[in-house]
């Protein structure tokens, strides 16, 4: 029996192998994704993002255990960074996901970013598709600990939860951060800590200035995730957002946006491959760097020269 046959028979080992196949971008992985695509499209995707150590994994754990208790089929993707120097990664999000680690309806996968810089791994979006096609009804996606600019999760997910903590900083930082623009729901975690009350009121102020977005008033929820306080209220908000967005005209725009992002990613990855393998394979690249270093060429005309080898046929 092929891997794909076993996958469709709901074999967990096969699911895991399919994910690796995609993650490693093995030959034919796009074809495999094409086969899975018609089976996907039903899962609801929840993104959990925020600065390092804010409590994203702990929150994912608590929310998942509630969803799982309601008999939902659940997938979780937890992303941690790959070292740009060694290519290695320490994936430690599971440490905080002990409540759900043995539930038969929960599948957790850790992913290393592998060079991607938007807060997700290179193939997180594809792995989401795999889990969706497998029959997962909710998919939680935990990003790496983000700063102000890693915002890919919002394009991928239907509901984006931004988790902040009192240590996050003051309101000016808050207004700078792109993070503030992607949240459908904000969480002030570690409410047991000093400064949580202030953060909460500052957040409410910032969000009030921004006002109602297409009929959704962005809520702020205070939690103490380690103690499972406030997490029920958070899940309620998520479910409210789900029913809001699923019935609202804005959903069509959101879905088309997702497709746009996906498509442009797929095309640019092929460009990237083309560049590395055909246009600028490593020896050619190295000699070009040499020439530019010696001042014989400049990077701008070199770039145009490389690109001019592509012939675009209009038809």
């Amino acid at each position, binding site marked *: 029996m092929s*891997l794909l046959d076993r996958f469709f028979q709901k074999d967990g080992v096969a699911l895991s192998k399919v994910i690796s196949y995609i993650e490693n971008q093995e030959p034919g992985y796009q074809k495999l994704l094409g086969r899975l695509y018609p089976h996907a499209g039903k899962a609801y995707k929840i993104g959990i993002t925020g600065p390092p150590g804010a409590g994203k994994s702990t929150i994912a754990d608590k929310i998942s255990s509630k969803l799982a208790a309601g008999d939902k089929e659940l997938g979780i993707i937890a992303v941690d960074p790959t070292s740009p120097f060694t290519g290695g990664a320490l994936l430690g999000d599971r440490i905080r996901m002990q409540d759900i*680690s043995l539930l038969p309806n929960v599948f957790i996968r850790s992913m290393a970013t592998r060079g991607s810089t938007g807060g997700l791994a290179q193939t997180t979006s594809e792995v989401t598709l795999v889990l969706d096609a497998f029959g997962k009804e909710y998919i939680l996606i935990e990003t790496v600990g983000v700063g102000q600019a890693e915002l890919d999760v919002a394009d991928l997910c239907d509901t984006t939860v931004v988790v902040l903590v009192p240590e996050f900083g003051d309101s000016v930082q808050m207004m700078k951060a792109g993070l503030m623009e992607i949240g459908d729901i904000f969480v002030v975690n570690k409410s047991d800590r000093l400064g949580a009350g202030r953060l909460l009121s500052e957040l409410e102020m910032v969000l009030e200035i921004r006002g109602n977005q297409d009929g959704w008033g962005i809520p702020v929820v205070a939690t103490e995730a380690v103690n499972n306080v406030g997490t029920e209220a958070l899940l309620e908000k998520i479910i409210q957002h789900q029913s809001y967005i699923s019935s609202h005209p804005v959903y069509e725009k959101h879905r088309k946006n997702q497709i746009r992002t996906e498509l442009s990613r797929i095309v640019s990855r092929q460009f990237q491959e083309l560049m590395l393998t055909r246009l600028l394979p490593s020896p050619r690249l190295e000699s070009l760097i040499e020439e530019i270093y010696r001042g014989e060429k400049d990077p701008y005309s070199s770039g145009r020269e490389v690109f001019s080898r592509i012939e675009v046929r209009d038809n």
Partner: protein
Amino acid sequence: MQKKFRILLAKPGLDGHDRGIKVVASALRDAGMEVIYTGLRQTPEMIVAASIQEDVDAIGLSILSGAHMTLFPAVLDLLKRKGAGRILVFGGGIIPEKDIEELEAMGVGKLYTPGASTREIIDYLKKTIPGRRKEEKVF
């Protein structure tokens, strides 16, 4: 692209000494591997479930509690039953020579005692893992 090595490290049992395993985790990461660390107090069921979901090449267990003669066989047995017998199980801890021989005869991989260098472990994994991987018919 060389497929990344994925290694799960866990500490079964009740003792809380995780210094050693954290040193190994950092060393494997610095050697370019993806290390999934699941933390303390892991049961064999948890270890095996996580290893399957993460599709790891190897599981490294740190056992200082003396329970190695029950924990290692339990993990091996569960892996086999779940169809994941290809995953290499290795480990470290305070394990008498005679037990090491017995465990290795059961199919456990290399076992390291305190003082072993992380270099040895890295070399062992790099040498052993590729041969255990299996090409599968995808479609």
